């Protein structure tokens, strides 16, 4: 923003009014109005975001069960994390989940978006978009319950058709080796529409004239995809990758509702572990230490995103 005002006589410029040279009384009035408008947000921010954040950091150095007095234990909660096999399982599960979620969302989302971004009948486009996007607006509660039954050997239809195809079946959610993959699939079904919509918007932003020019130069569709679509779409791809990772890193509901973290801790996610530690066993300090760990990971990922975005994303 540049100052475009001469003296106290205001002039209007493209960038707008600058109050640096406005009379002090006017400036003070503007500040009062601003703080009045901001006050609800500031108060709520202090009480429900900044305060709790500080509280969680402080709590992470204490041992507290809500009933007896809190005990200062220094870094013990953090040390404990590295020796707690079920917490480590949660970390491993969450990273495995986030990794596969990222791959299948970005890859699958791109394929689905490319399918729509052609000249196709309008009805097909509408049905396809609706079918893919509808699960996004369903609640995790409904989705988890539905898939709990779909995957159930007695009630569900999946096993019946797999058997018809000669594929060995089992109780997917009750086996340690298949429970997490099953939840990865359910999560894909539930959230792929989100990735799809964002990538579709990104594809629509790739200027058509680039494709036309390349076509005239004799570039085939594979070549155009590699040399035009992918580079132009890279900021969007990166953005969806980050969002998918952050979302996956905080996964909770499907595990909580479908498997309760079992069997044998094979589907305990970090957030689920925080929930069990804090709100079922009331180890507030230990749960806070884990939550701070989640915070640090998400902060690092976001900072990487901002840093990369600065050099990668171009605005035109």
């Amino acid at each position, binding site marked *: 923003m540049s100052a475009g005002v001469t003296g106290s006589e205001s002039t209007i410029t493209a960038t707008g009014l600058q109050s640096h040279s406005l009379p002090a009384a006017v400036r003070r009035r*503007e500040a009062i109005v601003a703080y009045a408008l901001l006050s*609800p*947000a500031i108060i709520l921010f202090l009480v429900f*975001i*900044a305060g709790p954040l500080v509280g969680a950091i402080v709590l992470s150095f204490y041992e507290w069960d809500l009933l007896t007095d809190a005990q200062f234990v220094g870094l013990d909660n953090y040390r404990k994390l590295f020796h707690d096999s079920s917490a480590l399982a949660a970390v491993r599960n969450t990273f495995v989940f986030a990794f596969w979620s990222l791959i299948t969302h970005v890859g699958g989302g791109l394929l689905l978006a490319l399918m729509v971004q052609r000249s196709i009948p309008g009805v097909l486009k509408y049905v396809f978009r*609706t079918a*893919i996007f509808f699960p996004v607006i369903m609640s995790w509660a409904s989705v988890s319950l539905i898939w709990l039954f779909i995957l159930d050997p007695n009630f569900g239809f999946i096993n019946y058709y797999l058997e018809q195809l000669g594929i060995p079946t089992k109780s997917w959610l009750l086996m340690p080796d298949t429970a997490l993959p099953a939840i990865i699939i359910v999560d894909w079904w539930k959230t792929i529409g989100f990735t799809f919509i964002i990538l579709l918007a990104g594809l629509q932003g790739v200027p058509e004239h680039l494709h*036309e020019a390349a076509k005239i130069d004799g570039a085939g569709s594979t070549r155009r995809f590699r040399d035009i679509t992918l580079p132009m779409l890279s900021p969007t791809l990166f953005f969806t990758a980050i969002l998918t990772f952050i979302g996956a890193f905080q996964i909770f509901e499907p595990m909580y509702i479908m498997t309760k973290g079992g069997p044998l801790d094979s589907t305990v996610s970090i957030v689920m572990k925080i929930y069990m530690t804090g709100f079922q066993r009331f180890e507030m300090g230990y749960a*806070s230490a884990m939550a701070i760990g989640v915070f640090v990971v998400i902060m690092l990922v976001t900072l990487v995103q901002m840093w990369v975005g600065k050099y990668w994303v171009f605005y035109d």
Partner: protein
Amino acid sequence: MATTGFDEQRIIDEPVTTPATVKAARKGGNWLLNLAMILISILMFIPFYWVLVTAFVPPLEAFGKPPDWTPTNLTFDNVQRVFDAMPFWRQFFNSVKVSLLVTVGSVTTSTMAAYAFARLQFPGRDVLFVVFLAALMVPGQVTVIPTFILMRNLGLMNTHEALWIPGLISVFGIFLLRQFFLRTPRDLEEAARLDGAGYMRVMFQIALPLAAPAISALAVLNFQAAWNDFFAPNLFLTTPDMFTLPVGLVSLRAMFGGTPTTIFAGITMVLIPVLIVFLLAQRRLTESIALTGIRG
């Protein structure tokens, strides 16, 4: 789209003719892709269809092998069982109440703050904004533990206040609306200021109507998030008469009478209004998501 100004562009568009065989091959490929799209649509939709149909099948006839995709003996008994097993309308009302309070409240506080950040000059503005921006990185799991302790100490466990009061602030909403205000020209507002209109009048009569698309997008997204929320209601609410619908549905599973067909009927009763709203507002909703990048 950049216009180069070359007239040749128009001319060379036409002469590029594709050989008939290539055209036919491409058409065949398109046809296969269209078929794949139909198959994917069906696969994505099957879970929902299954629930919808099974909700109206008598319990003893449901879940047969092979699955019956077009049952003829339909009944509303399962719906009645939902009403018997859970206080459905009570929980529906709870969901509406909490979601509306969160939506109206958070959109209001976000709009006010965003307007101040985007349009007004005041000491500490940039520092304050960076602090708010940094809060975008704080996940809910971090703040929920101290918030839980706070609500417990205030005696607000098993109340809706524990849900909607913390929901009154949306840092993301502030960020989103500020961006929107910054992108819209301020000429009109400045003209009104010069004509002697006060800050409030300029905000309400000029800036807000212009920002209506962004504000309504934020409202839709916030409402949907509050309506679907499971974590907080599950944590703070303990009795069925206080539950919101997602918690009520899940608790149905552990309840006497919570047979699979009853649960399916419950899911259907929750989903049908969502589906109707979705079909009416799909464009708006998908646009909001593409615009904001909020993950459902």
